[in-house]
């Protein structure tokens, strides 16, 4: 029998954590070992499939921060620990973790864009000597939209330099404004060219953050972004994620900015 790269495998849900009303973290039993930034296809028979980033990994499990937005994700929200989710993957190319070694790392996230970088941030937190420094700018629309409260607190208390912000609202210890506003506060000059920038969030946030970074003299080839596109197969067959000659499911979702800036749909 030929191998079937789109075969969904049943996995048990171990734990569900409500990060916000609409965003829950599902811990699922599996031995699959994805790289930070990769994604999996989650599937419910009778409903369909959805690509979801791996947001955490541990011994024998993976975590997925899922936002309830439609058909598949709504039904996933009806599941309880002990129920079955179907998984296939991992797919795509994740963050260039090797590239970050011994560099100053700047991570800029918008909303649930924190999910696809959480696994990488955890690695940098666990191995403080891996890079020279970590600056994290995380923006959320409002208080209700904040996810990974515990991680944000842990990173802030640890060695990361953090700026947490709400778009318009006030919150104690937090800043107010879009993430782009804080780009100039990163001590770019002190990095002496030895840095890498990771950006992930909704499409307009990534676009404007890219432009703002370049305006602040950040070199394009040192910026990385994760793209979200409609996907049906995740294995380069269905065509939904294609932009020019690029398949986001295969060649991405993470791209260097020199490539990303030309990925105009």
């Amino acid at each position, binding site marked *: 029998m030929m191998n079937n790269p789109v075969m969904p495998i049943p996995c048990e849900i171990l734990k569900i954590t409500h990060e916000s009303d609409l965003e829950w973290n599902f811990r699922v039993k599996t031995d699959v070992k994805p790289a930070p930034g990769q994604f999996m296809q989650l599937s419910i028979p009778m409903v369909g499939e959805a690509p979801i980033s791996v947001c955490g990994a541990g011994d024998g499990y993976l975590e997925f921060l899922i936002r309830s937005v*439609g058909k598949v994700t709504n039904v996933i929200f009806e599941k309880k620990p002990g129920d079955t989710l179907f998984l296939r993957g991992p797919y795509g190319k994740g963050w260039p973790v090797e590239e970050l070694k011994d560099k100053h790392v700047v991570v800029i996230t918008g909303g649930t864009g924190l999910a696809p970088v959480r696994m990488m941030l955890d690695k940098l937190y666990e191995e403080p000597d891996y890079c020279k420094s970590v600056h994290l700018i995380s923006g959320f629309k409002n208080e209700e939209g904040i996810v990974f409260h515990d991680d944000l607190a842990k990173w802030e208390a640890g060695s990361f330099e953090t700026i947490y912000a709400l778009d318009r609202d006030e919150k104690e210890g937090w800043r107010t404004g879009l993430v782009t506003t804080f780009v100039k506060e990163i001590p770019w000059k002190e990095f002496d060219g030895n840095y890498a920038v990771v950006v992930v969030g909704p*499409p307009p946030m990534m676009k404007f953050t890219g432009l703002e970074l370049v305006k602040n003299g950040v070199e394009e080839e040192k910026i990385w972004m994760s793209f979200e596109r409609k996907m049906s197969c995740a294995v380069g067959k*269905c065509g939904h994620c294609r932009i020019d000659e690029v398949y986001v499911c295969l060649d991405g979702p993470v791209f260097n900015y020199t490539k990303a800036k030309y990925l105009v749909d």
Partner: protein
Amino acid sequence: MSYFVTTEQANQVLSKLLETYDVYAPKRFPKQGRFSDTDIIRYAKVEKVDDIVYDEKSDFPAKEVINPIQQAIFYFTEDEFRASKGHTRPILLFARPCDINAQKVQARIFMDNGGYQDLYYARMRELINFVLMECPGGDDTCFCCSMGTNKTDNYVMAVRFGEDGLKVEVKDDKFAPYFEGAAADDFTPKFVEENQTKVTVPEIPDKDVLLALKNHPMWREFDKRCVSCGACTIACSTCTCFTTRDIVYGQNPEVGERHRIAASCQIDGFSDIAGGFGYRKTAGDRMRYKVLHKFHDYKVRFGEDMCVGCGRCTSRCPAYIPITATVGKMAAAAEEIKKEQGK
């Protein structure tokens, strides 16, 4: 080795072949055409030589046999997915050079892209034996010569249909026994060397020219003209895109099938994602996406153009948009941009 067989002899050969093979060829379906009193010619199983339409190009491509508009890929219950059963009998597929070459194009996506081999395409391709139908010249929408897809040697047999019989070249020896006793002939298939319609595929030297071409006003013409029906991509010999959908059996909601259904980049919603984001919101932008894929993007990734020049998209378009004119306009726009950018 080549042979001449009378139509009667050919029918005998065909019935012998049918003991082992399913035979698919273009077949006429009377009065099912787009306009009243017109027929449709599409691929179907055939059992008689007379069923095979050889003197007209089929309205729909041979890909439908290998890569149907809709197929079940899994059967599922609440706790298990099982791959659907595939076709089991080997297939003889009658096709013109464009349709055979189109499978080279589809295979790069289904068999190779990203290092993933698609089970459903692969298991079907294993069963396929192409029978080349010598092309008597196509029609005024064809431009295979411009695309270099007018020739092929990917066939087990080649046939030329005539009034009183068929000439057959048997290239794969395993088919020779079927022709025992038939008259020898010196037939080898001829290929179309020139089409009435010619196309110049634009040279797009770099991403800046590409970006300017995407933003060129030429695409706005299609905002009004193209009705976004997707008929062109369904008729296309090489389009591969699909969507996955689950279908539940009426009586028993616990079991069902996961289907693969042909999708069209020309229809709004093809690229919509959560949060109300979507790309290519106008018919012109979607036209640009399709045409650049066929005549540029695919080549950048795989080394050859995606279009095989079959002209079916032109024939099927209810808005009478000819692909050849669109590519011509794109080539002119590319030249204009290169001049502006000094390239």
